[in-house]
């Protein structure tokens, strides 16, 4: 289950980056608000892993006030991974719902 949760979280991060590149701080805050992470800090190792696996890339951007910040964006591999996840997740969710709801009714 831990692996499932981690995998889903990774792909949620990818999905959040799909539209536009973002700063980690905004990404992490969104995930926290969505209730997907108990500790915002644990997202950073996840982001590092995504970067090492080539699913996201970062550029340093000058920020308005203060030192340059990391700006995260999806790589082509990241987009592929996200698309594949969407297909798998849809099927999985449907199957689980069918069984779990079915059992609840009987």
């Amino acid at each position, binding site marked *: *289950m*831990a*692996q*499932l949760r*981690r*995998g*889903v979280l*990774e*792909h949620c991060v990818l999905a959040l980056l799909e539209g536009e590149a973002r*700063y*980690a*701080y905004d990404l*992490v805050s969104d995930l*926290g608000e969505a209730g997907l992470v*108990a*500790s*915002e*800090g*644990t997202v*950073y*190792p*996840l*982001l*590092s*892993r995504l970067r090492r*696996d080539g699913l996201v890339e970062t550029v340093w951007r000058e920020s308005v006030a*203060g*030192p340059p*910040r*990391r700006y995260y964006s999806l790589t*082509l*591999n990241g987009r*592929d*991974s996200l698309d*594949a*996840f969407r*297909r*798998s*997740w849809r099927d*999985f969710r449907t199957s689980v719902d069918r069984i779990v709801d079915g059992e609840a009714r009987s």
Partner: protein
Amino acid sequence: MMTEAQHPLVTDYLRRLREATATLPPTVAVELVADIEEHLDSANLGARSEADVRQALDRLGSPEEVAAAAGPELPPLSSPDALIASSPPAAGTHRLESVALLLLVLAEVLFIVVPLSAPLWVAGVVCLVLATGWTAREKVAAAAFVATGFPLVGLGVVVSALVVAELGACSASSTSTGDVIETCTTTTSPLGVILPALLVAYVVAQVVVIRRLLRSLR
């Protein structure tokens, strides 16, 4: 990368984080602490109330929790099926991919024995086309770097040999005793050096691609 007005609670948190990440690989630890420091800088806590700072640090999670998240890695999730199946994939699942790689590499290594290597290569290409365990991009990489092995290496070695042979000039001369002595001189042209170098570079690239492809199967 310390900003001037760092709240003492933040400084303390970062110190505890450094301690908690001491057992991690140095690059991982340094990167994580830098990321967290950047996060806290972005939160602009310098001039906020202590309650706000404590809340921000709570949301971050304890240094131990954060460091633990960077700990021992679960296997990479390049295939969504790996994440959804709670048990590891059955042993035979990626056989076709491994066989494809094996056949193509064998064909390349045994290229000299054409009656053997040619069918091996064809079989390898067929397996590669039929394989489902890789994404389209991975299959293109396999085709570009591994399937081309047999034709390129075979061709490359033959061309190199021809180039070297052509550059050799043999002249026959007879000595006073009536013996014929053949002296051969070979001159090295840039081609004779470049071609083998290209071959080596190509083989290195192949090894890298093959390792990546195998890793993605796990």
